[in-house]
């Protein structure tokens, strides 16, 4: 067999990338449904808003965790930064939501760039600790600088102006839900372009085998720094949305629980696949709402049990119960 020529090889690669990035048929339908949901399920607009925000947060974590293999237990640092930035902007500068959101994204991207050099070296454990440490420091900072952040009482009195000058934030939450969904959609599309491009392919190469990636000439450190910064910006957007749609920011945007929850729901939905964050957010939030109505005090127990079983059984096999007891399945 003759070797494929260089041109043919390049064509195949370009084609495969192109095919990967084409929108599947069901995707536009899905997004249309999502956009309509605050109107179709009007009484649940508030939880839809929360789901959209958490889904966006999960997508940002997927960029670093699912696509690049960086285990981070402190992603809430950027989420919280975005939340406080947006809240302070609305309170001190101007109450326009969109400008505030852009400001929040800018601030958290900056923070991400600063922190990116902390995750470059060391083992998984080191990275875990450092990311956790950064989130905790921010938590303490927010607690200490209470003249700025309101401390443990939270930053109150954030009144948002009407969206795009026309749509005021109503009590039923419809405006909030639409706003969050639209922002999530825009950032989702951008993330999609990113991950389906050649850049995204290099990220996955780094995730799968860093040494080999380095050997074929991928600039690993700079890639890591770039994706971490981008993901920080996206997380900041989610945080900003939360602050704007709820009208305040409190210390638990930085809490460990938030980082752990988003990692959990991303794993439930599936890493390395942007819809995984969305699926996980939907399932997790609904489950949380339903279970905590039944047993408000002990729902963490059931979540813990679910996690343990899920990990033991293997993430891929969750929805196929007949594989649970088969030995030696793929996991």
């Amino acid at each position, binding site marked *: 067999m003759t070797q494929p020529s260089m041109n043919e090889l390049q064509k195949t690669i370009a084609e495969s990338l192109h095919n990967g990035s084409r929108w599947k048929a069901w995707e536009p339908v899905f997004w249309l449904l999502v956009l309509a949901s605050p109107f179709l399920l009007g009484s649940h607009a508030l939880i839809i808003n929360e789901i959209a925000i958490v889904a966006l947060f999960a997508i940002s974590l997927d960029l670093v965790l699912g696509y690049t293999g960086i285990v981070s237990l402190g992603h809430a640092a950027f989420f919280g930064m975005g939340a406080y930035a947006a809240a302070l902007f609305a309170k001190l500068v101007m109450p326009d939501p969109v400008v505030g959101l852009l400001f929040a994204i800018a601030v958290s991207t900056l923070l991400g760039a600063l922190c990116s050099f902390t995750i470059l*070296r060391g083992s998984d*454990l080191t990275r875990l600790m450092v990311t956790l440490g950064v989130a905790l*420091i921010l938590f303490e900072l927010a607690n*200490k600088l209470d003249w700025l952040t309101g401390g443990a009482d939270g930053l109150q009195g954030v009144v948002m102006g009407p969206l795009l000058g026309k749509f005021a934030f109503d009590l039923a939450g419809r405006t909030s839900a639409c706003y969050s969904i639209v922002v999530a959609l825009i950032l989702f599309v951008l993330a999609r372009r990113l991950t389906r491009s050649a850049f995204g392919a290099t990220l996955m190469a780094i995730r799968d085998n860093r040494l080999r990636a380095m050997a074929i000439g991928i600039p690993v450190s700079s890639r890591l720094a770039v994706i971490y910064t981008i993901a920080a910006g996206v997380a900041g957007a989610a945080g900003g949305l939360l602050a704007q749609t709820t009208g305040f920011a409190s210390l638990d945007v930085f809490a460990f629980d938030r980082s752990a929850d988003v*990692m959990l729901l991303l794993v439930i939905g599936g890493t390395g696949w942007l819809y995984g964050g969305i699926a996980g957010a939907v399932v997790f939030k609904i489950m949380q709402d339903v279970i905590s109505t039944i047993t408000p005090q002990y729902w963490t127990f059931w979540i*813990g*049990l679910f996690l343990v079983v899920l*990990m033991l059984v293997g993430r891929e096999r969750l929805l196929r119960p007949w594989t649970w007891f088969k030995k030696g399945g793929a996991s």
Partner: protein
Amino acid sequence: MLTILFDGIAYGMLLFILAVGLAVTMGLMNFINLAHGAFAMVGGYITVLLMQKLDVPFLVCLPLAFLGSALVGGVLERTLYRPMYKKPHLDQVLFSIGLTFMAVASTDYFIGSTQQIMQLPEWLKGRTELGEGAWMLGMGHYRLFIIAVCAALTIALQFVLAKTRFGSRLRASVDDQRVAAGLGINVNVVFLSTFAVGSGLAGLGGALGAEVLGLDPTFPLKFMIYFLIVVAVGGTSSITGPLLAALLLGVADVAGKYYIPKTGGFIVYGLMIAILIWKPQGLFVRKGGK
């Protein structure tokens, strides 16, 4: 000032006993076990409940706490942890977080969420003061007790590791599991016993610490970060590494809060991040180790 140093050392030694099990299992099994704090909690609750309900004397409760946690650890290792060894770190992290949630919620359900208050025996309640003024060394008797117990345990551990056959098997398995198995060392038994002892030590630490650190169902979550810091900074290839890291952490935390009360928790986290960036494998790594 000397008193602060003393308090810091006591705190550090307590952290060491709590965290040494985690360091060894992480080095040995390459398993990130975030549920380690739950074993400490088990030991703490065993002690408190035995003392409150059955009036068992404090000194008797300590070995019972050790045994109880070791038993729980051994059972869990054999049943739940073993299938997880080969899985990626992320899965292990989530698995152990899940275990921790379950432990926290069940403790809350069966015992309640209020802080447990322990009554120490009289001979541990006193205080000795030496010296005058700024150089006064005030030593609470309980903290003296903690330092004594932990120092004894450290010496015992070092002895076991360096001078016994089990210790050399353990060290071999940490350095290279496959080769150790190839030499006929029963790695499964080494894992099981190490995990059990590590959990037992955590339980003992929980029992000792209940008085000083407080004990409630959220204990594993509150203190997990400290254990992780000790292990990350101290490295997982020896026990002197975590010991020094724990002492450093203890003294820094206590001194920081005394001299600069405004910054409180910062110091610890900032120090940790700085150290980890400077030396990602930990401060005290043995050459040739992992």
